[in-house]
């Protein structure tokens, strides 16, 4: 007899995270229960990301192990970056497209061996991998449930890891992965993350998840290590200008109409699109798009404070900032005409700016273009002045140092 799954799946860290979450503020993430915030607000959790070290359970990510003679061939045929060129221990951020050059998903590829890779993604991609692997000598395993994942992010992340890991992290460069050992468990640590800060991600066999968590929390206490939820992460990733599937773009596999799809160029991910490799999904369409120039670009918006304040003052109100990052679509105007939309936004406590991530049509995406973002005050739709900014908003040297 199989028990009826009547609850969301939990991650391997659930036994530790559940007692910490004060307001039972769970949310869904890839079919799992994930913490929105542990404390009453995400203030301290966000501060830990930018000031100390934050510990995030990112286990709901989908993870695939791809091995065999044709592993490189498969990935190079599927994704837009040049995988064959990746060094052993290198991690690539990349997207992958359908034949029309529209993004299906994005994630990281870690080269763990000559013929061994780990792919992470936001949505399930097993079927897509298998379809692309037809006739190839390659093994694709969905290891999502076998591997717990923690993100340790913040300026003191390295210090914390050096205190608990058997091997020092000092030599690990940005977007590289190494084997290591914590609390007697063999695991991998990559210098990656979703915060745009110094940070690491730990890839931990699920059965050993709790001891690793415990070791990090025990030693991390001295360095202000704070478990953090999605609310805090959301602010950090907007500051870092990182796109999010289902928020900033829709998968070509899920979109209902063509207009809902985005190409890597339209998301300003040009640097992830390689043309110095063989054929891959979407290459022809991407080549053509590069030649004619993308119709859309993904940019930052900085809301003009004076304008924002003035609009509120008309109602005799102080400026009301969003308490958490928003994920709705807000129209963006230029000279009275809609020229795009913002898909995420937040107040940056670090930069002291009201930021948004926006999709703008040509030619309105040039940096410093003056546009207007729709805001709502007292049930009225108004517009606040905003300026186009190049992403990321925040890019500290420690991220790569």
């Amino acid at each position, binding site marked *: *007899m*199989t028990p*009826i*799954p*009547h609850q*969301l*799946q939990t991650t391997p860290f659930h036994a530790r995270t559940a007692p910490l979450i004060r307001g039972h503020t769970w949310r*869904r993430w890839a*079919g799992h229960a994930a913490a929105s915030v542990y404390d009453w607000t995400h203030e301290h959790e966000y501060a830990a990301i930018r000031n100390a070290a934050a510990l995030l359970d990112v286990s709901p990510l989908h993870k695939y192990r791809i091995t065999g003679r044709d592993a490189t061939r498969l990935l190079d045929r599927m994704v837009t970056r040049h995988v064959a060129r990746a060094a052993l221990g290198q991690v690539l951020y990349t997207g992958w497209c359908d034949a029309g050059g529209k993004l299906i998903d994005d994630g990281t590829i870690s080269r763990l061996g000559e013929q061994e890779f780990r792919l992470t993604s936001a949505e*399930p*991609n*097993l*079927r*897509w991998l*298998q379809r692309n692997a037809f006739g190839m000598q390659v093994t694709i395993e*969905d290891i999502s449930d076998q591997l717990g994942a923690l993100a340790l992010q913040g300026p003191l992340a390295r210090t914390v890891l050096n205190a608990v890991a058997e091997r020092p992290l000092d030599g690990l460069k940005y977007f590289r992965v190494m084997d290591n050992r914590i609390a007697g468990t063999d695991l991998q640590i990559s210098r990656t993350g979703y915060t745009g800060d110094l940070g690491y991600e730990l890839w931990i066999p699920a059965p050993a998840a709790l001891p690793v968590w415990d070791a990090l929390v025990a030693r991390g206490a001295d360095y202000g290590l704070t478990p953090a939820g999605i609310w805090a992460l959301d602010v950090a990733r907007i500051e870092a200008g990182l796109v999010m599937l289902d928020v900033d773009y829709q998968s070509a*596999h*899920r979109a*209902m109409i063509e207009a809902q799809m985005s190409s890597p160029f339209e998301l300003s991910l040009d640097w992830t699109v390689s043309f110095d490799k063989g054929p891959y999904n979407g290459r022809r369409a991407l080549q053509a798009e590069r030649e004619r120039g993308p119709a859309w670009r993904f940019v930052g918006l900085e809301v003009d404070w004076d304008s924002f304040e003035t609009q509120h003052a008309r109602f005799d109100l102080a400026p009301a900032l969003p308490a958490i990052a928003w994920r709705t679509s807000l129209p963006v105007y230029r000279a009275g005409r809609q020229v795009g939309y913002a898909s995420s936004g937040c107040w940056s406590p670090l930069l002291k700016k009201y930021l948004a991530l926006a999709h703008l049509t040509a030619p309105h995406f040039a940096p410093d273009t003056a546009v207007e973002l729709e805001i709502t005050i007292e049930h009225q739709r108004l517009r606040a002045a905003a300026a186009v900014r190049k992403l990321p908003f925040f890019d500290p040297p420690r991220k790569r140092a």
Partner: protein
Amino acid sequence: MSNRFDAIVIGGGHNGLVTAAYLARAGRRVVVLERRELLGGAAVSEQVFPGFTFSVFSYVVSLLRPEIVRDLELPRHGLQILPLESTVTPLPDGDYLASWNDPDLTRRELCRHSRLDAEAIVEFGRLMHHIARSVKPFLSMVPPDPTSLSPRELRGLLRLGGHLESLGPERFHALYKLLTMSSADYLDEWFECEALKATKSASGIIGSFLGPRSPGSAYVLLHHYMGEIDGAFRAWGFCKGGNGTVSNAIAAAARAGGAVLRTGAAVQQVLVRNGRATGVVLADGEELSAPVVVSGLDARRTYLELVPERELPGELLAQVRRFRFRGSSGKVNLALSELPDFTCMPGVGPQHRGAFSISPSVDYLERAYDDAKYGSFSRRPYMDIVFPSMIDPGMAPPGQHVASIFVQYAPSRIDGGWTPERRAAFGDAVIDTLAEYAPNLKSAILHRQVLTPADIEEKIGISEGNIFHGELSLQQLFFLRPAAQWASFRTPIRGYYHCSSSAHPGGGVMGAAGRLAARVILGDR
């Protein structure tokens, strides 16, 4: 009471009632004549056993056209659709395959069986959504006649062509496959889990004398995806009070518009003078007259029984005689002292608020079809089981329950004909099969009602007991439903119309035929 009306509708099934309601709303004086004492045809709720109410025949809603719900304000007239939770397929090895009303839970469950299928089902659902959206306009279109060159038909054909072109290649190709393939073959292109393929392909055999491997069954599968509740395709719901509430709500809307609804009024003949319908004569000799007579009965009765043969062209009569009914399904309604306790999912839980599907493999379904092909009912049939009392407690006394079991195959033309003994044996086969999955079933049964196609025909008059008023096979659809050149709801007899599920777009408690017929009738005057 005057016997003169603007329109007479023969048969108080849901389509007849829909036509009557639309005509009444347009200001016509309408009378509906129902042979039984109860309105609703195959959409009726009856207290078959004291305290136990059953949706005796049709038992879920999904395909009911949302425009009818809106136009006739059915919620105001009592229609309340309650959600169905899940579909659970018990498996012979004691496991199960479930699909829940939540995508995350369903994914989690499917991952136990096949991670690939867990992904494929999302893409499949998306494609079917697109196709259902594409086909939706056809459902509310009077089929154009492709052989006619009249401006009206050409306009319809152009609309159709333009529509197909707008589908785009991926969806057009998928539609073409759905129209031509077997459901098993089509699903093989998508899935690997046997129970999943079987449970999905079961939608492709319902109401048809086809097996899951028979070409054409993929269309029936699509037909079941066209249902829409609150804007979501492929949503199935349960009607509070049973499916009789659907008919009663439409009847209430018709009455509110001034329609006269008569029960116990069996029509003997349609009166035809000079090639024109003038009224009807009832079994007791009473005559009613009207310039418009609409048959809500199936095509065979509409063309071959209600009107004199000499009034119709021979070619049409031949086509109607060839129109395939071949009822293939039966129904078992149970009054239960307790809910069946399924071995694969013990106890009482959310699973009882959804459907159980006895469809462990495509082979299982195909073997069930084999029995039927050679003149017997299936010894081990496909079943779709719901417990309406779990959704609407008013269907049974407190603590007790009703089960509605749709069963296939029960061929209308069984060797030796349907007898009380064969009906009982059929009922036993159903109970024995189900009891293998829920051992407490037999001791829980207080009463049982077994309905064979012969019973369906005898009770509610559908030829050969076919639940769709004729199979939904490609050669009987759209401009060929029920006959070439007569898919427009008109007949060769002026003033005589046809509004049943034998007409486009077919059955499944859609009401679409009734609405389209009313539109044609109102446009003709």
